[in-house]
């Protein structure tokens, strides 16, 4: 499935509530996740998405 700009935007949008509530979910398992850890995880997700878009996104050779 081609990773379009629209799909990438949707994934970014849905990553926001997940990131915000990540510390709550971790708290269920007695893991105290600091805010900076959440920021790093979200940054890594965005970086991964950026790489995937480069590989499989609109205009990439694989997509073509």
């Amino acid at each position: 499935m081609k990773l379009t700009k629209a799909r990438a935007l949707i994934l970014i949008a849905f990553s926001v509530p997940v990131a915000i509530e990540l510390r709550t979910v971790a708290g269920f398992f007695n893991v105290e996740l600091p805010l900076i850890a959440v920021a790093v995880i979200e940054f890594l997700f965005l970086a991964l998405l950026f790489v995937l878009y480069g590989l499989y996104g609109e205009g990439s050779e694989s997509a073509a």
Partner: protein
Amino acid sequence: MATASGGSEFVDKFPDEAAIIKASFLIAFVSLGIGAFFGLIQALHRTNVLRVIDSADYYTLLTGHGVLLAIVFTIFFLCGVFHWAVARSLDRPAESALFSWAWVGLMTTGTVLATVAILGGLVPNLGMSADVLFTFYAPLQAHPIFYIGLAMFIVGTWLSGADWFLSYRAWRQDHPDERIPLQTFMVLTTMIMWYISTLGVAVSVVFFLIPWSLGLIESVNPLLTRTLFWYFGHPIVYFWLMPAYLLWYTVLPKLAGGRLFSDPLARVVFLLFLLLSTPVGIHHQYLDPGIAEGFKFIAMTNTMFLLLPSLLTAFTVVASVEHGARQRGGEGYLRWLGALPWRDPAFTGMALAGAMFAAGGFSGMINAGMNINYLIHNTLWVPGHFHLTVGTAVALTMMAGSYWLVPQVTGTKLYSRPIGLLQVIMWFVGMVFMSNAMHRAGLAGIPRRTAEPQYQNFEFLTPIGSIFELRVQIALGGTLLFLSVVLFLFNILLTSLGEESDRPVDSYLPEPLSGPEGSPRILDNLAMWTGIAAVLVVLAYTLPLAGIIQNGGGLFGGGLPVPATVSAGFDLVMTTVTSAFNTLWGVVA
């Protein structure tokens, strides 16, 4: 539900209706812009990020934000959508364009008067203010023109409903044996609900608040005006929501590439909202003295019943969207989600609005539960909840729907789909930040409706994170939401100024998978459903109102509400029950 417009566009076929709709949308969008600006100032002020107003003026802006967005924007947009839906689905223009303009004019005049009264609060020398918040009941008092403006606005909505009923009556004469077209059925049931529920606020405004603000009567019974407000104040939630449901049921499946899953189920949902949305308002008054706990329990039970039509909607709309995705080649348990038209801002906005409405529904169940409500009552949790419902499910659906509707009434193509897509996603992200933080802040006990949420020598505590983070989230969310509105207005303005197109949008609406022929004809018996709805209201409200009047010092106050353990006297109860029975009998007969 096949398109009635055939090959021609709506604006070409119904030019008078298109003009009415454009006028309604224009006022809705101007209100949206002003109200959103007020919202930005409030978000920055409360969180102490940027303070450009005095804290006393916060309440003026809060009132403006609530009235302009929750009443003017939503209802003017609703009137435009309903006018479109009735003309389109009945395939006929309104009976009188002059009459249509009359309700637009009356609602507009009412809006201007109420807005002038509110904004007058920013100019102390005027001696005019209406800092009564969206919940305009006693003991807070506004300038008389605020109430007069609101009364004119409400009467205008009544006339708009009459306009659509007249269209329906004319259509019925020509089609005596046909089922009511689905969109018209949705409009009519919503308006019946509105007529029933606005009786409360009309009585409150006309008989108590206007004479009180003019000095004609010395006092009012605060609990009575409060109860009459909430008699209308909860059904208005469904008045906002029903146009969003209309778009989710009849437009979203088409945008997804499919068809509505079940027409009969949609009819049942709208009837359930007609029956159940009014006898629930007391659930806003769990902490009010003067209303017996039993009546609050009944209101809670009725409220929980209201979950049923919302859950039916979730099933039907998601099933319809999944059908559309599979028509587009989507496969698998979840992979079909990728086949949806995410590039289309109209689809994406409505889909995101629906997703957030699910979260709003869950927090609404918390509000509705008597016990757990005590935890969050009058905290920032409550604005967090209704920013998910009216602020996203409704407002985002209306903005997204505009990307499909506005081209139909202007005859021009949408200026920019990418800007539209960015706008709806920005709204989603902004609201995630803001409403999430509001819910969390409410759990920490931070109050609502105040410019100064900080107490001296007191610190709010959160189990995870800090209050500072929540403030940053609210400020960030509010800023993103305002920018989103700016993008929306920019896109719509340039759309309406664009060149006319032969086919600005694909306006065809396909037939449902399961049509109306599969449902019993009794669903179309609107008179009977109206009678049942009235009976439920009488059952839910007669005794509480009798108790409030008796124990609160009569119709016009003069005494304080007594504790909830004191009930109405036996004679009064008998008189009330007898009159209620007579009313019921009159409705049934």
